[in-house]
């Protein structure tokens, strides 16, 4: 069953179309990937679904479990179980990792915070009292973001570039996190231009220039992405370094 339906989504920003006539169904309990080159509109799509400031003036409709959420604010959507892991997560002066995770958590206990930190490969002893500020490395911050999402037990989670800033040895931990989310029953949408991340998904949607170009099984789209998309001269096609440089 479709958990989230995007119906004829159009969005203009700064006077130009950023998303054009996007129609997608995301299936409950499945892992999806939204792929495409830099500037394709992937993060914009995630921001539209989460309802972030500046991404609310969309045409079309967003249906979550049969109800339109288009006019709802972020907190309201989050209370329905929708969340977003940022491409570049926010940093907070003085707020500890423990408090940040517990604020997000369904079960607000220190044990939950410890559990989810372990799930993403961070030792709770070392991290619970650290601040979620600039002293965390980019990769650590991404892991804390994923930990907070695991603690929330969302029904629908958008992960924008979950592998950015993550080294090869930690990548498996991130993938484990995605599997855990799935095992919790979460519907997952991965935003990525990495083949390795795409491989975690069952279905994939390929974007270019703000449009949905093609969709299908992740295997099929992977072939299309490598065969058609990479060699393409289109202005927002990335060079190979961007794609394999993870």
């Amino acid at each position, binding site marked *: 069953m479709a958990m989230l339906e995007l119906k004829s989504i159009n969005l203009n920003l700064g006077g130009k179309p950023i998303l054009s006539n996007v129609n997608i169904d995301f299936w409950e309990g499945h892992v999806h990937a939204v792929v495409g080159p830099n500037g394709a509109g992937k993060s914009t799509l995630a921001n539209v679904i989460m309802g972030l*400031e500046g991404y609310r003036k969309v045409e079309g409709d967003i249906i979550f479990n049969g109800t339109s959420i288009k006019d709802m604010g972020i907190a309201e959507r989050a*209370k329905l179980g929708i*969340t977003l892991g940022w491409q570049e997560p926010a940093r907070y002066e*003085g*707020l500890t990792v423990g408090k940040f995770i517990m604020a*997000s958590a369904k079960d607000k206990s220190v044990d939950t915070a410890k559990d989810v930190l372990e799930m993403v490969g961070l030792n709770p002893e070392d991290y619970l009292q650290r*601040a979620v500020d600039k002293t965390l490395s980019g990769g650590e911050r991404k892991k804390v973001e994923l930990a907070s999402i695991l603690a929330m037990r969302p029904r629908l989670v958008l992960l924008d570039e979950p592998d950015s800033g993550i080294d090869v040895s930690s990548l498996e931990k991130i993938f484990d996190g995605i599997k855990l989310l799935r095992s919790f029953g979460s519907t997952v949408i991965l935003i990525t231009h990495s083949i390795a991340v795409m491989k975690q998904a069952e279905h994939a949607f390929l974007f270019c220039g703000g449009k949905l170009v093609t969709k299908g099984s992740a295997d099929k789209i992977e072939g299309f992405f490598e065969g058609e998309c990479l060699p393409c001269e289109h202005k927002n096609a990335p060079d190979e370094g961007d794609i394999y440089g993870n």
Partner: protein
Amino acid sequence: MEINELLQIANEDKILNDKGTAHMTINLNKVVSKNLVPGLHIDTEEMEDGVKAKIVVDEGVVIEKQVHLCFGVTHEQAVQRILMDIDIKKGASISVLSHCVFPRAVHVKHIMDAKIRIGEGAAYTYEEKHIHSEHGGIEVYPKAVVDLDRGARFKTTFELVRGRVGLLDIDYDITGYDESVMEMMSKVSGREDDLIKIREAGSLVGEKARGVLTSRVAVRGNAKAEVYNVLKATAPYARGHVDCKEIIQDNGTATAIPIVEVSNPKAHVTHEAAIGSVDTKQLETLMSRGLDEEEAVELIINGLLS
């Protein structure tokens, strides 16, 4: 109200039973209790409206356990003047936690006037935490003039985040000689018609002297904050930084005036100031985890002031 209640509010009641921990408790103009450790001297003189205290740490003495001071006013109306003369001798080291507790204050004026000398290579850490009543009628005037000798270190934190501020007028002046280090941090949270004035001035007059002035202020309701940070460097290799962050909500207003002045080409001073509402990405992240906007703002501000 009993002084014991006051100590409980500050969570200080248990520590004062430890004979190895030096402490002094003052209620208005009376020294209620005092415990000293070897090498630490506190001479007091009770005045009509307060207490004069001379604190000396002998040369080379390292006081291991943090010293606890409590300045309380259990009355609703009063003026409390504390005159402090602090002398940390060469090579000595002390850390002080000071609670200023005015739990019933309706009209209370608390004046703290300190002269502090920190000798060569000595270290003084001073943390001052205020606990105020929910009335806005408190006036607090912390004033300090501090001299740091060669290689001396002074680290001070002023915190007023519990209860209403009322009127706060901080005035700190610090001079640092060769290779000294000064770190000043103030954290204040204002509401309703609170008025917060912070003036911190550091002069880095010695070679390789270093200084950091940090302020973290949140103003809500109709509260106002003025932060005036001055950092001057006149000696070679002196290094300084001024860092002021103020969050405003509702009708709060905040001003930041950082002045950095350098008169030696080998010295270097930087500053950053940010005033505004809560950062959108910080707010949206917490809201996307299911927090209401107010809860998210509270968490962000508490973090900043923690």
